[in-house]
């Protein structure tokens, strides 16, 4: 039985770790034997606008790495919601960062989940872990997609030796995001 192809956009300010979040998904899925692609947007983005990446995870070879109509969006800041909510496929999952986004998404044909992602991260003493909280929420909401343990291992592979000492914190935020989304 083929698993569905996941077309995911992760978006936020530069520095919120959107590229790393995408890489973690790819590495975890790749270790699970699936085809993956990750591509950053490298256009002329405005300062204070969005940085984003497209991730495709599939049982087939990936055709285009650029996701035009995502089935999953993780929006870590306000411009990300504005940019990607209109592009989403009906029935898609939109996880938005309620700590920073003041204008909630409105579409009726999406599964919309608010997550206090930066708040969850701050409880671990850093504001830079909102990406991890959102990934944890995604794992909780997408049954059978990836496990927390697969992301644990991906963290060790993706993060440079210098930053690996932060992985225990990353893993705690990942789990806090998972719990918050499970409770919702």
């Amino acid at each position, binding site marked *: 039985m083929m698993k569905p192809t996941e077309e995911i956009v992760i978006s936020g300010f530069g520095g919120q770790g959107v590229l790393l979040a995408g*890489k973690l998904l*790819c*590495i975890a899925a*790749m270790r699970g034997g699936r*085809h*993956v*692609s*990750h*591509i*950053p947007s*490298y*256009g*002329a983005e405005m300062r204070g606008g969005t940085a984003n990446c497209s991730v495709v995870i599939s049982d*087939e*070879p*990936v*055709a*285009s*790495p*650029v996701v*035009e109509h995502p089935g999953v969006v993780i929006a870590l800041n306000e411009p990300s919601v504005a940019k990607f909510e209109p592009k989403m496929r009906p029935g898609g999952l939109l996880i938005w960062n309620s700590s920073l986004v003041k204008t909630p998404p409105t579409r009726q044909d999406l599964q919309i989940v608010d997550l206090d992602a930066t708040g969850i991260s701050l409880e671990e003493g850093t504001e830079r872990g909102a990406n991890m909280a959102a990934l944890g929420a995604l794992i909780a909401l997408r049954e059978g997609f990836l496990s927390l343990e697969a992301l644990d291992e991906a963290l060790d592979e*993706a993060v440079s030796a210098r930053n690996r000492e932060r992985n225990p914190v990353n893993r705690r935020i990942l789990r806090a995001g998972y719990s918050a989304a499970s409770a919702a």
Partner: protein
Amino acid sequence: MSKKTVLMKGNEALAEAALIAGCRHYFAYPITPQNEIPAYMAKRMPELGGVFLQAESELAAINMVMGAAAGGARTMTSSSSPGMALKQEGISYISGAELPCVLVNVMRGGPGLGGIAGAQGDYFQATRGGGNGDYRNIVLAPGNAQELADFTVDAFDLADEYRIPVMILADGFLGQMSEAVVLPEPTGKTFEKDWALTGAKDRNKRLVASLRLAEGSLEAHNLHLQKKYDSITQALRRFETYKTDDADYVLVAYGTSARISRQAVDRLREAGVKAGLFRPTSLWPFPDKELHELARKAKRILTVEMSLGQMVEDVRLAVEGRCPVEFHGRAGGALPALDDVIETVMRFEREEVTHVHAS
């Protein structure tokens, strides 16, 4: 256990493959969307005792490649479309002097400075040559990060075997995308370079040049080059076919366009339409005889490109009127949409049915 699968950006997979192939002389000037190649080389070359020299311009970089190649070194330069345009004079000189080197073009949209998103608008530049004179370069067209690595290792061997520049022609999407890669092993092939300028102590002097003024000598050289190009054309027409055995409609595409076309083939097959994909992996020499054979059985051919029609000319030359050759292209950094490719072939199918009913 086999070597480990890693997630690598296409540009970085290519750069590491060049190092695996023994490249220790790399010269370049930065340009998006290939900047990960010089960034990677800046980090790795010193670790390996090699040289990455960031030149003052693209012209300087290609001429440094000429010098390193004349000295017998495995050498490479990389750039993107407008940067490759600047290198053409050097490429022509290197071709005339029969020096081996690897050239990488991670294409972006043009003409001129154009944009920074991926495109395939340099097919003519790569396969016809933007430089002067009767010359050809081998042009390889990878379709994913794995092939960016594998073809690069191969490119160094081909360059040395034939004393010719070998170009890796990729688009910006391939360069920027991260995918699963198993890094290739060195091939272990060695090539005697009895023409290289290594210091003439205790041996006769050698000359590497592209200037030939003596009466008849240039034509003799041109004929010698042509003979070489003919033998490459015989030996090196490369391609991959996908579901073409019984295909009524053959899509022809390379690079990212081929990835999208391959998925279109799957969707069309699911809808009962006999589609297939012919993917040239060498653009020069173009696999013309092989495509010609497919065209004898096909109802129509559709060329899909991220340009407004360049490879389609080689497709028409190969098909020689055996069946209609149609074109679908996007330009300026846009990607062909899967649904558009599918709909184009569906339209062919509807037209064929109408045609049969009418006759």
